[in-house]
């Protein structure tokens, strides 16, 4: 079939190639920076006040280099890395020696996935629905009010918005906890008590992310819908007596969705980079701080592990979007 040969197979090859390219870039760049993991570990131990006898320094450096597997040229390390990769083994983290990278990611991933999947879904769905309706009924009062609210909310710097929420809802009124993903003393179990605790702690981070994300989606969608609204087929439909609800639901919004779907896919793909500022403000666990610390500490293995997830996540999201374009917009053809 022409579709397969002329589009699908080259597309899949491109998919694999992009992943390979991304991985190689991420392999090279940390090694190109002046930051070196052995030095970073020693520097950190000194900074935290550990006693490192000066006479023993050379021995410590040699030991660390060997433990981290950093002897040998870059090419050796590169082959070793790919060998491990096919066994789904990212090696050992330098900074958190001797914990394995897989374990670190596995502990942090559920928090990031849980928080960001939920907030992306909430902000996208509500933003698009409200934006679509507001765009269609652009002259109505409620539409303008919503637009004004989104207008003021959207440009807030995220840190200030998040911290202000925290101040308001955790201090002025003591409805929510000040920090953490769960209460002190709470250990992860599959009990309703623990889940409730996590939800209570996640409310503020989720709220801050959803509101800001939703405001952006709302405004973009409103703009697009206003343009679609002006198209002649909408006028035809109105003149032809199609009900308003059907026009909005089946014609206008569907047409406006294509760029929004692209945005959703990319947003989902970027979940694996974590939400660093959210984690900082709310002391919330997740991949963001893990990635940040690994970059600062030149923790090569951990960097590779997390960015691998991110790379695969985003490229897959893009692939899915590309393949499903025709579903949303029948005019798009690949052959």
């Amino acid at each position, binding site marked *: 079939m022409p579709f397969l040969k002329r589009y699908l197979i080259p597309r899949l090859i491109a998919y694999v190639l992009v992943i390979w390219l991304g991985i190689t*870039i991420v392999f090279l760049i940390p090694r190109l920076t002046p930051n070196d993991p052995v030095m970073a570990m020693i520097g950190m131990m000194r900074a935290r006040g550990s006693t490192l006898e000066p006479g023993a320094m050379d021995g410590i450096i040699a030991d660390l280099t060997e433990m981290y597997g950093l002897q040998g040229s870059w090419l050796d390390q590169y082959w070793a890395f790919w060998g491990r990769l096919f066994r789904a083994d990212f090696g050992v983290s330098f900074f958190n020696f001797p914990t394995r990278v897989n374990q670190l990611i596995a502990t942090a991933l559920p928090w990031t996935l849980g928080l960001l999947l939920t907030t992306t879904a909430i902000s996208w769905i509500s933003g698009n629905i409200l934006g679509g309706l507001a765009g269609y009924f652009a002259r109505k009062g409620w539409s303008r009010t919503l637009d004004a609210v989104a207008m003021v909310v959207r440009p807030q710097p995220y840190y200030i918005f998040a911290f202000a929420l925290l*101040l308001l809802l955790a201090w002025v009124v003591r409805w929510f906890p000040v920090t953490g993903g769960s209460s002190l003393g709470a250990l992860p179990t599959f009990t309703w008590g623990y889940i409730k605790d996590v939800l209570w702690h996640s409310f503020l981070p989720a709220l801050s992310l959803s509101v800001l994300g939703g405001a952006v989606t709302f405004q973009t969608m409103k703009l697009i819908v206003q*343009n679609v609204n002006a198209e002649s087929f909408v006028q035809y439909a109105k003149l032809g007596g199609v009900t308003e609800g059907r026009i909005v639901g089946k014609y206008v919004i569907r047409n406006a969705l294509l760029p929004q779907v692209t945005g959703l896919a990319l947003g989902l793909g970027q979940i694996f980079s974590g939400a660093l500022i959210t984690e900082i403000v709310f002391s919330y666990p997740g991949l963001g701080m893990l990635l940040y610390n690994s970059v600062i500490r030149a923790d090569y293995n951990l960097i590779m592990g997390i960015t691998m997830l991110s790379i695969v996540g985003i490229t897959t999201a893009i692939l899915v979007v590309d393949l499903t374009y025709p579903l949303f*917009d029948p005019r798009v053809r690949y052959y």
Partner: protein
Amino acid sequence: MKVLRDLFRDYRFCFSFGVLVIILILAFLSNFSPYDPTLWNVVPKDTKPSVQYPLGTDSNGQDIFWQATYAVRNSLIISLIAASVSRVIAVLVGMVAGYTRGNTDRILMFVSDGLLVIPLFLILVMLAMMVRQHMSLVVLGLMLSAFGWAWDARVIRSVILSLREREFTQTAILSGTGTLKLVLNEYMPFAMPLVFSTLINNISWAIGLEMTLALLGLVDVNIPTLGTMLNWAIIYQSMFLGRWNWVLTPVVISVLMFIALYWLSVSISEYLDPRTRIQRVGAQ
């Protein structure tokens, strides 16, 4: 001038025009500042707004108002460089890819995806570490622009892809319209609202990213920008100590700036698109 008069009919345009003029005046005023923005302890610390210090002074011993003029100027420079350079790249890449499809499309998307998949943050931090001593406003702007186009190129490409299949495209091609004319005259009006909204996105994204980098200490904190001013205010716990004049200055300025830019873009793109222009005049 008729154009301007028509534009001014829209209250949103008036508001945003006014705000932007004020912001530009503020940025220009920085040339007349009596204080060197990189020196500390030039005025008494932590005073409330008064006649002598219109917005009060901060905990570093600088006048907040004059710091703000520098901050606005520097943030504008960074974000304008970042946004404009990345717009140009995004539009070019998106249009070419969407129109020509085939191999060119694939190669361009390959490059853009390559940039998209790597966590931006990782690269920025590492670049910042490598560049450290040469980190100036222009360098920061260019760094941000290199990462701001990939997403929007894809979005523009998706719009072009669907436009390509419409009848008017076939009509134009059949009647002999050249590719360039087709793209510029026919597609641009569809793409313009998107370009403008992404321009706004991009400026606010650039300012937001600059703020994040400032919070993490990756930019030169001695150069006043909206991000570094906010960072200092947070470090000195100005919210807990009730020094709202310090914290709110960069926040209010950036919020006003964004609203102004957004309304500006919306009203201009509505004006440009003939159908919405008619809508505004009230034929609906």
